[in-house]
């Protein structure tokens, strides 16, 4: 199976051939890697690559596999387009700001329509006894801000959009 990924702007073309059980042979630029992969959970893998042992976490979404090895995180992207867009700092005009954790809205710092700067706090959410500022990921105008102090939000909720 042929696979392509992008990491830090570089393209990786691999050929992955499953062998018996949980063993794979991966060919990358003519270099051969024998891989023994044991899935501990759906995201945590014990990998033995050419006899070297790695315990890795791989979280996948529609655009990338986020790989954590030790103290480092690698965003291995599935498509060139996004990767190069990121390279060129082109981000689509309108963007949604989602929250990855559930929490309680403690304060709303700006109103709908307000012009904000990248890094400016828009909301404060509380979870696990800590208050966390939700910041604007870029300059823009805040829209669709519907939450108010006291609201409980689920993980994945779109808190506001930036025009």
């Amino acid at each position, binding site marked *: 199976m042929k696979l392509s990924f992008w990491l830090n702007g570089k393209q990786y073309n691999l050929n992955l051939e499953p062998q018996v059980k949980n063993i794979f042979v991966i060919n990358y630029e003519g270099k051969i890697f024998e891989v023994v992969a044991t899935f501990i959970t759906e*995201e945590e893998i014990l990998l033995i690559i050419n006899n070297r042992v790695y315990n*890795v976490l791989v979280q996948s979404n529609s655009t990338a596999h986020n790989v954590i090895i030790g103290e480092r995180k690698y965003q291995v992207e599935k498509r060139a387009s996004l990767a190069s867009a990121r390279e060129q700092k082109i981000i689509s005009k309108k963007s949604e700001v989602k929250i990855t954790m559930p929490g309680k809205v403690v304060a709303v710092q700006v109103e709908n329509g307000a012009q904000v700067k990248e890094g400016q706090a828009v909301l404060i959410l509380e979870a*696990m006894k800590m208050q966390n500022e939700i910041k604007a990921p870029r300059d823009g105008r805040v829209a669709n801000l519907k939450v108010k102090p006291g609201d409980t939000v689920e993980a994945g909720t779109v808190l506001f959009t930036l025009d």
Partner: protein
Amino acid sequence: MKKFKKILIANRGEIAVRIIRTCREMGLIPVAVYSEVDSQALHVRLAEEAYPLGEAAPAASYLNIEKIITIAKKCQAEAIHPGYGFLAENHHFVRRCEEEGIIFIGPPSGPMELLGLKTISRQKMKEAGVPIIPGTLEPIKNEKELIEQAEAIGFPLLLKASAGGGGKGLRLVRQKEELLSAFRLAASEAQASFGDPSVYLEKYIDEPHHIEIQILVDNYGQAVYLGERECSMQRRYQKILEETPSPFIDDNIRRRMGEIAVAAARSIGYRNAGTVEFIVDKNKNFYFLEVNARLQVEHPITEMVTGIDLVRAQIEIAQGNPLPFTQEQIKPQGHAIECRIMAEDPFQNFLPSPGKILYLHRPGGPGIRDDSGIVEGYVVPIEYDALLSKLIAWGRTRDEAILRLRRALREYQIYGIKTTIPFFLRILDHPDFLAGNYNTHFLERLEKEPLVATDEDLVAVIAAAVKAYHDLKKETSAVWPTKSHPWKLMGRIELLRSRL
């Protein structure tokens, strides 16, 4: 002298587990309480008896004084151990225990109340000859006084709430122009947090170390200190890693701090275990900061070097036993470090990460102690703090302790939620930390440092490839059960391949 039979632990998580363990080792019956999200928690599993507190919100459960008193009376517990946090430093709760004839394992309500009032405890400490940070001894009365006092102390300075701590009502003022607006903000925050707008001024100590002394005081006035803990590794004013001995101070200062800590506790009639916190400036001058009138989160590092079980000491003091050791008999050996593993995502600005623990493997082996409050299958709730586990390493030397802690962190597998383990690996690799050269500013600087690149890019790509194959296989086998024709499956895989 009273011998307890049963102790109610008015807490949850790792500290409830910690106290239950010592109860078991003393032959006491540990009684757990639990809110509805904690019915499968480790502290419930390990207790001898367990009583429900109802809904999860702290005010309804672990902060509900009357509910806890009622359970203690119902199960006939002679004593309550409050752990830390929740009701541990609530003098109203201490007083309710005293009224009901239940022994509160901690100081009496009098000193507890006094220690909550920051300006009054500063006055008391000054009277007792304890060095305090230069600043005001009374709350600021008005803006005129504010300006006079600030100029007398000099900038930068700190505005602090008189009625409490934890960073609430705290403002750093670097120059005179910021003073008035900072004062108004601090006062309104103090009012909101503690119902009392009073603030006072303290000189700001630059490049400070946060070092604390563990003390034990029995009911007969005997008191000892058990060495210090270096607590300068802080993020947003929260300690995340502690070690003993401190790589910053020497035996002479260590002894002086210990003696002053004991004097400070004696001066206010303190009892049981407590921690006297000091700020130490870069010239190793030290100043009283506050007393934590309870068992400290980081108490295990002191236990590791002294061999003394501090929870046992607390219970014995509460039973009325005299201290079983003298100051001379306390001889710390080796070095211990603790890191607080939190349910936070270090790659996403430390956002909290509650959720279900799908897989758990904790490290072991020589010199490693794991004080965790979690089990596999447990859903880490959103209602309480994010501390999952304290991992503690002991070594004959500081280097050995660091290397052990690092290898143990690499063994630790908490899957299903995010944890701060990767962040600790960064700290333990940092040359300044390895040199013992850090103060409370270390982490804010570390977070700005870029991660050094490694040659593991290809490993990450291979991991992604294996994951992609795994997901694809799962998807295809879910869509067509095994009975479907192989060629159909192949077609499906081909289809999917082109999508990748």
